[in-house]
Each structure stands twice: as C-alpha cells, then as structure tokens.
C-alpha cells in the first residue's frame, strides 16, 4: 500500500514538474528581460517623440527665417542662402551636404559635408530633427559662413547629393519664385493668385 502511494506520488510530482517547470522558466525569462530593458533605459520609449521634436523644430525654424524662406522650405523642402560674396548661393537640405551653386548659370560648385553631432554622447547618439538640422546650417552659414565652410568636408558635386536632383531643385526653385512673384503682384492688384486663391 505504502509502496503504491509512493509510486503514485512520484508520478504525480513528475507530471506536475513537466507542466510547471516551463512556465516557471518562462516567468523568470520575462523578469530578466524586463530588468535588462530597465537597465538600458529603453523602458518608456516614446515612438511619437521624434515627430513632436520635428514639429517643435519646424516652429523654431519658422520663427527664425523670413516669410519667403519659410515658404520655400515648406513648399520645396530646402532653403537657399545667399553667399557673402558675389554670385553664389547655397542650398540647405536636411541631413545632406550643403550645395554651393551659381544662381545665374545653375552651375554646381561644391558639396560641403557638415554635421552637428551630440558631443556628450558621441557613440550612437540621436541626430537633430530635420528642421533643426536646417536651422543649424542656416544660423552657421548666415552667422559665420567662412567658419562653417572651413569645418566642412568639401567635395565635388555629386559625392552625396545627386546633381540631377539639385538641378531639378534649382528649376523647381525658379518656378516657385516666378509663381511667388506673380502671387505677390496679384496681391497688390487684388487678383487671384496662380493657385486660384483670391488676392488680399
């Protein structure tokens, strides 16, 4: 009788262990993973943070540049900044090199590769939101053009930015300026603009 009870107990224990051990392992594994995530600071990752940062960056950019530059960036996705010297200008793209060109001939001069790295976290650090990157380039170019150009790595056109795209952008810019001038003239006369919006 005792032997039968012991045998039954052993069988029940073995069956329970078969069922419970994987569950206990699973629980411990999840606990370890939670702890590891907590230590690496990934808990609380907010997927909307970058979008909100970009929204703030857009507002900051808008508050710094003039209306024409803001409209240019909003409509075309880049900014044109005139050089201090005669006869050249720059195109500023987010997170791409600055492209120098001759406005009259649309000749591309150089690419200036420049970044604004987070020196406090040099490895794997996040980068500036797109519009902050544009604003940083705009401030550095308008505030200290030669200083920025000295720091940049200069390359021939086409190293990182496709020259066909830049020429297309310069054409888009000329069309955009023509439409803007027409809109501005229409505003003065109270006529509808190129997109059919009533003049002011």
């Amino acid at each position: 009788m005792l032997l039968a009870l012991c045998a039954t107990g052993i069988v029940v224990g073995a069956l329970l262990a078969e069922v419970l051990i994987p569950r206990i392992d699973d629980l411990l594994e999840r606990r370890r993973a939670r702890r590891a995530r907590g230590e690496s600071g990934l808990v609380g990752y907010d997927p909307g943070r970058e979008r909100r940062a970009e929204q703030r960056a857009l507002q900051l950019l808008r508050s710094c540049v003039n209306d024409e530059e803001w409209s240019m960036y909003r409509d075309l996705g880049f900014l044109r900044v005139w050089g201090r010297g005669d006869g050249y200008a720059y195109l500023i793209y987010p997170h791409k090199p600055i492209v120098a060109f001759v406005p009259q001939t649309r000749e591309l001069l150089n690419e200036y590769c420049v970044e604004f790295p987070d020196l406090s976290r040099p490895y794997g650090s996040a980068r500036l939101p797109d519009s902050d990157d544009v604003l940083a380039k705009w401030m550095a170019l308008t505030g200290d053009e030669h200083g920025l150009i000295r720091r940049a790595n200069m390359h021939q056109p086409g190293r990182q930015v496709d020259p066909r795209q830049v020429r297309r952008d310069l054409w888009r810019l000329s069309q955009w300026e023509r439409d803007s001038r027409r809109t501005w003239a229409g505003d003065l006369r109270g006529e509808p603009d190129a997109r059919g919006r009533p003049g002011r």
Partner: protein
Amino acid sequence: MRPGHGEVVVAEGDVEVPHEERELIEAFRRQLDEGLWAAVPKTTNNGRREASMVKSFDEIPRHAERVIFFPRAAGGAR
C-alpha cells in the same frame, strides 16, 4: 536644440533684473562649456533675416529675445 529632442528651454529671465541676469549668464556659460554654439537670430537693416554667432554673454544684444544653442559643426561623411 538637442539631438533626438529638438528645442528645449534652458533658462528664461530678464537681463534687467540682476539675479535673473546672473542665472542667464551661468546658463549661457554652461551651454558653451558643454561644447555648444550660441546664435542670436536677428533682422538686418535691409530686412534680411540672419544669425549672429556669439561667444560671450556680452556679445548678446540687450534686446535679444532669445539665444539658440546648437551642437558645433563638424565635417561630415568623407
């Protein structure tokens, strides 16, 4: 500007109030000590918008509404 975050207000105050000005000066120095650049957006006499890079608190115009700090530029992809 902070990578990954965008605009963050570092300090606010009135330069005409002595203790607030001191706090602004300290905040300004801290940012520069951390290796950031400082710029003041402004409108030129001919109506163009541009920025002035400033390296000391004295260089900031008294009427400036804000100073923007951003990471120093470095040469990009070689």
